[in-house]
C-alpha cells in the first residue's frame, strides 16, 4: 500500500529559529513530490520536486528530494509567526490514474 509519512507531527519554535520538516514515502510508480502550506482553509502550493538533489528555493523556504532514500525535507530559515501553519507533503503516483497521496502534515507553531 502506498504511504506518505511526515515528521514531526507538530513543532513549536521561536521566531528566528530554523526548522526542518521531513516527508518519507513508499509508493509504486513515483512521479513527483509536492509541498503545501495550509493556514486556515485551502492548502497553497509551495514546491514540486521531481529530481533528486536539486534544491528548490523560495525566499526563506527550500526543499530537496532524495529518490534513493525516498524522502524530502522542507527547510524554513529565520522563522516568523506568519509561518505558523500545517505543512503537507503529497506524492504523485500512477497506477492507471494519477493519484496525489498526502501525509498527515506537520503542524508548525512559531512563537513571537
Amino acid at each position, binding site marked *: 500500500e502506498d504511504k506518505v509519512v511526515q515528521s514531526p507531527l507538530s513543532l513549536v519554535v521561536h521566531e528566528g529559529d530554523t526548522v526542518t520538516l521531513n516527508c518519507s514515502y513508499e509508493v509504486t510508480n513515483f512521479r*513527483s513530490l509536492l509541498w503545501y502550506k495550509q493556514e486556515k*482553509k*485551502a492548502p497553497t502550493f509551495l514546491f514540486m520536486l521531481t529530481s533528486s538533489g536539486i534544491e528548490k528555493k523560495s525566499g526563506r523556504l527550500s526543499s530537496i528530494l532524495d529518490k534513493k532514500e525516498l524522502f524530502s525535507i522542507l527547510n524554513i530559515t529565520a522563522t516568523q509567526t506568519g509561518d505558523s501553519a500545517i505543512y503537507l507533503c503529497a506524492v504523485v503516483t500512477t497506477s492507471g490514474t*494519477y493519484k496525489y497521496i*498526502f501525509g498527515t502534515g506537520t503542524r508548525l507553531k512559531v512563537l513571537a
Partner: protein
Amino acid sequence: GAGVSQSPSNKVTEKGKDVELRCDPISGHTALYWYRQSLGQGLEFLIYFQGNSAPDKSGLPSDRFSAERTGGSVSTLTIQRTQQEDSAVYLCASSWGNNSPLHFGNGTRLTVT
C-alpha cells in the same frame, strides 16, 4: 474565476439528510479531485475526474457518496443519508493535467448533527 470556488463554505445538516457540495474549478483545468480532511487527519482521496475519461471513484468510502462533473467543469459531490462520521472538511482541487500542482478551494465544512 481566479481560483477554485466551493459552496457552501459551511453546511450543518441532520443525520439522515442528503447534502450536495459544489466545486467550480479554475477555467481550463482538466483534472478535478475531491478530498476529505477530518480533524487531525491528512487529506483522504475521494474521487478524480480527468477530461472525458471515466472517473476514478476508488476513494469513495461508501455507496452513499457519489460525484459528477458536468461539461468538464463544475462538479457536485453528493452524500446521501448523512452520518455523523461524514463530518469533515471537503476539499476540491483542480489542475492543468496529470502530475501538475493541485490548486485547492477553501473547502466545505460539513457538520452532521
